């Protein structure tokens, strides 16, 4: 075998392994180590622990990861961005921003899952292990400076999520969701991989920096292969972020997956997908803007329109939030379409704000869903305000934030990406985005109307317990949404300085 390899490469030299600067990967490694510790405890310990321990350890792991990310942030701002591990890993504000974002999603997701696992009597440790592993994949995607690493991250993220989607084995919908997600996800991964192959064929490298240099210094006499590669990669990542027309899986999977997992997925998987999309298209294919911006324009318009319009006719809250998450992807695409620094910063701000809004929303859905995770129709929210005014008020804030009402983070997020679009004179896209927001207000308000209406018959007495961990998650999400809505300057600063390596 070695002989064959040596023959193929034509030289006798041994394979050289690059130096690995482990510190650059500490946030992701922390998550993996945390996952392994959880597994060890679960398999070696004689007695079985409750979900509390595992969730607690996951939260601690997430916080440590957050701390290490902050440390790297400090280093990046002092020394400037750099690459590591033979240029395969980018150490820049962008990757750290996503490390922070994904760590936040882990913390909130774990807090939410704790009571869920107990309520649904699901096996505890695996869910948290998978969550941590999938998050580490997301961080790797955001740090990838090489298409192969990006693909590795994508797979680590996705495979864990496929299992998570089907985690509630007693619910048929959950297994169905896992199956759908897996089949379509595998397809999209294959498409993405083929895109990498084509780009490699066109440019001779998989390193993002080298691709950018190659494209900046060479004029391709025939760029069909490159365009094909770019298109396939856009499809593959578009699937992950649920952009129309690659969104078909979203409603079913969001509806079927256990609700805390849905929240985590909506926040972390979407963010990781956009991390890849932004990095690849903005930095590697930056010089090919004229080719991909019109395509992204069309994708953004389709995503905004289809997402908001189809959300109107949903009667299931989870499905409605799924369509709304599609339309949110449209807003992030608006930032990508602007293809300038403020567009990227706007997209980042949007994703961070959305993380808290969406996990907060799904926290409420988890609570109202009740035992069996089944009460998700609009009718189950009838009169929620009279039974649980606090939960109803929190949900109102999250929905208003998603609708883009002022003094919430959601408003500034929309403002940021739309201002980037206007800055690039994409007036049409900005107008579509604003009108999409008006349409979206309709279905968010519909839920609020129902919550503040009279309770459904026989439903007045149904208790909705609020476990402490879920209350903490709700509180954090609520505080972030409102505080950033009023005093956004620090977060905007964070997003602006989370610039890419190039």
């Amino acid at each position, binding site marked *: 075998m070695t002989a064959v390899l040596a023959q193929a490469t034509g030289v006798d030299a041994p394979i050289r392994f690059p130096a690995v600067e482990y510190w650059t990967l500490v946030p992701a490694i922390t998550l993996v180590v945390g996952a392994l510790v959880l597994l060890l405890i679960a398999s070696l310990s004689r007695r079985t622990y409750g979900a509390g321990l595992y969730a607690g350890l996951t939260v601690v792991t997430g916080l440590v990861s957050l701390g290490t990310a902050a440390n790297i942030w400090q280093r990046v701002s002092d020394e400037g961005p750099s690459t590591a591990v033979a240029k395969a890993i980018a150490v820049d504000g962008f990757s750290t921003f996503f490390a922070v974002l994904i760590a936040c999603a882990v913390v909130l997701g774990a807090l939410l899952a704790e009571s869920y696992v107990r309520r649904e009597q699901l096996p505890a440790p695996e869910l948290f292990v998978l969550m941590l592993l999938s998050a580490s994949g997301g961080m790797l995607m955001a740090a990838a400076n090489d298409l192969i690493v990006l693909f590795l991250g994508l797979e680590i993220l996705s495979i864990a999520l496929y299992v998570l989607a089907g985690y509630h084995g007693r619910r048929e919908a959950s297994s169905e969701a896992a199956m759908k997600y897996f089949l379509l996800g595998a397809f999209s991964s294959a498409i993405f991989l083929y895109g990498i192959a084509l780009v490699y064929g066109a440019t001779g490298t998989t390193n993002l920096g080298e691709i950018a240099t190659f494209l900046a210094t060479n004029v391709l006499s025939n760029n069909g292969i490159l365009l094909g590669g770019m298109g396939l990669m856009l499809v593959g990542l578009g699937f992950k972020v649920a952009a129309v027309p690659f969104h078909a899986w979203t409603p079913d999977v969001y509806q079927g997956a256990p609700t805390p997992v849905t929240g985590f997925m909506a926040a972390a998987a979407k963010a990781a997908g956009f991390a890849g999309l932004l990095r690849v298209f903005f930095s590697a294919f930056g010089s090919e803007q004229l080719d991909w911006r019109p395509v992204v324009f069309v994708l953004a318009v389709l995503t905004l329109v289809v997402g908001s319009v189809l959300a109107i006719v949903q009667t299931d809250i989870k499905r409605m939030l799924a369509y709304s998450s599609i339309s949110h992807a449209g807003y992030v695409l608006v930032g990508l379409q602007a293809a300038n620094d403020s567009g990227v910063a706007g997209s980042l701000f949007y994703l961070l704000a959305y993380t808290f809004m969406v996990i907060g929303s799904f926290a409420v859905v988890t609570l109202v869903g009740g035992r069996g995770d089944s009460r998700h129709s609009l009718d189950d929210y009838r009169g929620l305000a009279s039974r649980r005014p606090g939960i109803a008020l929190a949900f109102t804030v999250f929905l*208003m934030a998603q609708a883009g*009402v*002022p*003094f919430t983070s959601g*408003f500034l997020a929309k*403002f940021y990406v*739309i*201002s980037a679009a*206007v*800055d690039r004179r994409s*007036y049409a896209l*900005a*107008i579509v985005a*604003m*009108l999409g*927001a*008006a*349409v979206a*207000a*309709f279905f968010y*308000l*519909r839920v609020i*109307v129902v919550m*503040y*209406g009279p309770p459904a018959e026989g439903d007045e007495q149904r208790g909705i317990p609020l476990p402490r961990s879920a209350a903490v998650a709700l509180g954090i999400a609520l505080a972030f949404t409102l505080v950033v809505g009023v005093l*956004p*300057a620090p977060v*905007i*600063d964070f997003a*602006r300085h989370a610039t890419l390596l190039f």
Partner: protein
Amino acid sequence: MHAPTPDVTFPLLTVIILLPAIGGVMVLLTPSRRLDALRLIALLFSVGTAALTIYLAVKFKSHDGDFQFVSHHWWIRDFGISWKLGVDGISLWLVVLTGILFPIALFGPVVKKDVKAYLGWMLLLEAGCLGTFLALDLFLFFVFFEIVLVPMYFLIGGWGYENRVYAALKFFVYTLAGSALMLVGMLALVFLHQAATDRLTFDLVALAQNPGVGESTARWIFLAFMLAFAVKVPLFPVHTWLPDAHTEAPTAGSVILAGVLLKMGTYGILRFGLYLFPKAAVDLAPLLLTLAVIGIIYGALVATVQKDLKRLVAYSSVAHLGFIVLGTFAFTTQGLSGGVLQMVNHGISTGALFLLVGMIYERRHTRQIAELRGLQKPAPVLAAVFTVVMLSSIGLPGLNGFVGEFLILIGTFVTHRWWAVVAASGVILSAIYLLWAYQRVFHGEPDEANASIPDMTWRERATMAPLILLIVFLGVYPKPVLDRINPSVERLIDHVEERTGESQPAFAGGGAGTTEPHEVGE
């Protein structure tokens, strides 16, 4: 970027906005069963705000057209967004009107259902309204302009009548869609200004000095702004949300909606439309004047045939707001001053009308004109108060409505004669629909149900007294109010004339020449 000068004086305007907001938050934090404490907090904060706005009017320097009490702090520095507030003659009376109307609306009609949330939303609404009138930063204005929708939505949806959910949703989505384009227009203006001057700012004054946009671009952005304001005013043909929202809203909601919220549209036209895009405003004036006149006639005609008393008052608003827009786009000092004054007048008289209709509904549980008859007999005081308010709304000389409408018509006549002529017939129509409604409701022999209603209580009389006083005072002696409006209006007119090269006829304000010289009768 210029650093804003720090406030050395007492930040009066900031306090005026924050006071009701703090009151609202305090109400929300108070346990809902402590009704007295809740009412006391709301009373203290709303009356305190009213007192501050009156203090503002007293301290306001007349004969100064510039912005006063300016307060300027960075909010989001990276975007050039600042917390910049200021008041001039155009916004001053709207602020005072807001300050006075809110305590009246809060404590006039009795609300028993979910008092805590009701008071909380009302106070937050007040903060939003005051912010809209005081903001001198485009972003800040937009934020307040939009946030107002949320409390109003909950007030209509939570405390309104049968069809409230539909009306609240229609109100919210309609207005939100209207202002969608405004944000895009606003951003376009800001970035074009940045391209021209290399300074990213949302500061209204800086943008008005040098917008940096070409003529046709300015026209598009102006239209984007106008769409938002036209929905809010509401101008024909985007008025259809108004009758539903007004009719279904609780009494206090209707009072605030008609008295304050609609003024955000007309105020926005003056403050942003005319000030930022003078040339576009002058060029497109014929279109807007025509829409205003259509609104006047259409609103009046539709009001005439309403069967529901509240809906009748709602449509009368369409007509009255048409007058204000007419005066605005006349581009004469008289027309504009009349428009500003009429905003206040309409707030008072229509607010009072909604309160009275609410009182009738409380007694009879119907608003159908056909079911009301001869109310004069059992309730003479109610009938008398209704008469005064109605006459003010019609525009009878000696009451406030006359002064505003007269100035608008005279100001419009000198520059746009035929529009003024058609609009004047709206005055007659308003007499027809209001007097006819009055006749049907108050005259005649009351049947059994109508004969037994009680007259106004002392509480209701106390609610109406300040409004009646204002109606008479402004009708007899509007000078102190006009003295503070005029300098700012003249400044705005000067700004428009400077930028367009056109000037109003000499006797309508100042300057020589006219857009239509042959029509000047001097």
